[in-house]
């Protein structure tokens, strides 16, 4: 039970008054930004990352943990009240949550989301405490070829899992990988794609990529076709749940907690798939299946718990392997790099105070959120009434100030606008954004591991498959890649005059 001792040490770090204050600021800002329509947790985290730059690493990560969980809470509030999931992970929450709100049960939907998130976040973080040391022990046996295989899996998974279209996913990945190439080649020190511009020689900061494509892209996209009448916001009273709601919620909460974590912890991360599965599961198990589609509380409780638990699970590959599998953890990795820290097995040895302080503040931030969000939900809901010109002007404003703060360089702002234009194009033509973010941060890391592996084997390609793990991972990759082809084959046998092959899947009506 070494982990428990370490965790207590983490609490000792996180429970100082100053660090508690940082956690509180993080939680409050994260919720406030996350609740804004169209802003998901990843965007909230990327936008707010710069405000942690002035702090020492421990304080910064404690605030960061608060922002992360705060952004997730905020996102679910928006999904429920105006049916605008900022990110694919809260799409399922929006399905039933918004229906509940329209039937006058917004308060109950918010309550089951908030309490469910708290419970799932706590269980997920506890599982993180249990599994992170195991993963670290495992990671110490990883060779370069294993890392490379797992990173390839992360690429393929980001493009394929539940995506609207695998081709468009890979297009997005290709753009991200190209962005990742910019700068000095770490092995030989040669300049790639930087055209003699010194700022580009250091590479493009993934935070700027994330904010440009997410935040600026979103603002430009909405601005290009802004609806004249703002979305209807459902009012919230005091947030509470009746006895029947509790009875119908607690099982979905627990099921979601244990369903989400493994999906988050797998390098094929993301909470899209598990939240979808949780929704299906709850609909099947519910005693009121007829309510699904019209605002069933289980359909909010389950996916929302799953979402939070998977968010905790995502920390396992991030902390133990240094492997970001979602946009949020990509931004978080770049925060580590900002302080010259490299997450991975060695981080637990070298920076135990920081790692366990971060994990402890996940618990603390989670508890703070429950206290903050149940009574303050009506206040957060008021943020949804911000006139749209101010809202999107504000997003551009905060993106600018934050990204200027990264390097104090006005050139970065120009880059931000270009990336925003790219984000606009991707939204207009349905290219998913996540593969781009994952590609731009994991690309250089994968290249490094590939070259290391081939260096060890003296260029022989067999150097990429030296362990059972890497062979197994390649098998999984092959399965993911061949799955759509196999399905298309099956479909072709059935006579069917289908629409376009790239229709977006509507999870609600399957």
């Amino acid at each position: 039970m070494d982990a428990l001792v370490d965790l207590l040490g983490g609490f000792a770090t996180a429970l100082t008054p100053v660090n508690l204050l940082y956690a509180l600021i993080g939680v409050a800002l994260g919720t406030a930004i996350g609740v804004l329509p169209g802003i998901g947790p990843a965007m909230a985290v990327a936008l707010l990352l710069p405000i942690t730059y002035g702090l020492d690493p421990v304080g910064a990560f404690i605030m960061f943990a608060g922002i992360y969980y705060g952004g997730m809470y905020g996102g679910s509030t928006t999904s429920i009240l105006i049916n605008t999931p900022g990110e694919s992970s809260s799409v399922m929450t929006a399905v039933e949550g918004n229906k509940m709100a329209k039937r006058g049960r917004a308060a109950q939907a918010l309550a089951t989301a908030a309490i469910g998130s708290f419970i799932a976040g706590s269980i997920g973080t506890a599982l993180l405490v249990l599994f992170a040391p195991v993963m670290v022990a495992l990671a110490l046996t990883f060779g370069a070829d294993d890392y490379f295989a797992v990173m390839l899996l992360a690429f393929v998974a980001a493009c394929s899992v539940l995506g609207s279209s695998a081709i468009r996913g890979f297009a997005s990945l290709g753009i991200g990988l190209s962005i990742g190439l910019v700068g000095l080649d770490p092995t030989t020190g040669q300049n790639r794609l930087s055209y003699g511009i010194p700022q580009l020689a250091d590479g493009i900061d993934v935070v700027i990529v994330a904010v440009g494509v997410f935040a600026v892209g979103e603002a430009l996209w909405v601005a290009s076709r802004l609806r004249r009448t703002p979305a209807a916001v459902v009012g919230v009273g005091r947030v509470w749940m009746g006895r029947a709601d509790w009875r119908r919620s607690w099982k979905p909460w627990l099921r979601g907690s244990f369903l989400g974590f493994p999906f988050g912890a797998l390098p094929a991360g993301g909470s899209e798939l598990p939240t979808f599965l949780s929704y299906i599961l709850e609909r099947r198990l519910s005693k009121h299946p007829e309510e699904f589609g019209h605002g069933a509380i289980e359909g909010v409780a389950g996916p929302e718990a799953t979402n939070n638990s998977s968010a905790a699970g995502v920390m396992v590959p991030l902390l133990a392997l240094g492997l970001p599998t979602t946009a949020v953890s990509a931004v978080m990795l770049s925060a580590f790099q900002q302080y010259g820290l490299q997450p991975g097995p060695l981080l637990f040895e070298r920076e135990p105070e920081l790692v366990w302080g971060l994990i402890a503040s996940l618990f603390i931030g989670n508890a703070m959120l429950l206290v903050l969000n149940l009574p303050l939900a009506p206040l957060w809901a008021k943020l949804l009434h911000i006139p749209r010109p101010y809202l999107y002007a504000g997003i551009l404003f905060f993106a600018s100030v934050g990204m200027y703060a990264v390097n104090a360089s006005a050139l970065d702002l120009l880059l931000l606008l270009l990336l925003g234009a790219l984000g606009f194009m991707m939204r207009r033509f349905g290219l998913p954004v996540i593969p781009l973010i994952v590609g731009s941060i994991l690309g250089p890391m994968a290249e490094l591991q590939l070259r290391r592996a081939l260096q060890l084997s003296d260029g022989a390609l067999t150097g990429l498959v030296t362990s059972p793990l890497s062979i197994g991972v390649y098998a999984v990759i092959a399965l993911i890649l061949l799955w759509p082809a196999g399905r298309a084959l099956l479909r072709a046998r059935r006579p069917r005059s289908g629409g376009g092959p790239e229709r977006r899947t509507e999870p609600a009506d399957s």
Partner: protein
Amino acid sequence: MSDAGAPPAAPAPGRSSHRTLRGRAELGVCAFLYLLAAVVLYDAASLGSDFTQRGPVGPAAVPTAVGILLIAVATLLTVDVLRGGRGAPEDSEDVDPDAPSDWRTLALLAGAFLTNVVLLDVAGWIISGALLFWGAAFALGSRHWIRDPLIAFAMSTGSYLLFSALGIWLPAGPFASGV
């Protein structure tokens, strides 16, 4: 003056030629991917291999692979678009899916953004940031001549104070001696 929520109604010029191209606009994405592939491959080819190379894989190998991936994806996407596949535009509660792109608003927004890029180091964040917010809100159709600039200055001053409280430097401009 119009309500803050209403964007300016922009008569889009050249609507008719727009319409004939509309169905195939996504081919622009394919063109972009081919272009990007060309840039990446050209850059990879121009990398000298005379550098002291550690290991069998040089600096051009991965860019070449990325370039090939881009060409493959661009080709598949072209085929898909020509066969009638469509990427679904992202929906959001604030987006009117049937509206054509409002290029005037976008140009004004980009103008406000670039003004900030140019002015930031000279005029400082408080002035430049306020202009950015006001300009962007104006571009998005807000026409409150008193409230808008007041909010803009409150935002830029507030963020300046918050950032300096958190130990992050922003250009102060003319207020440099005062703060």
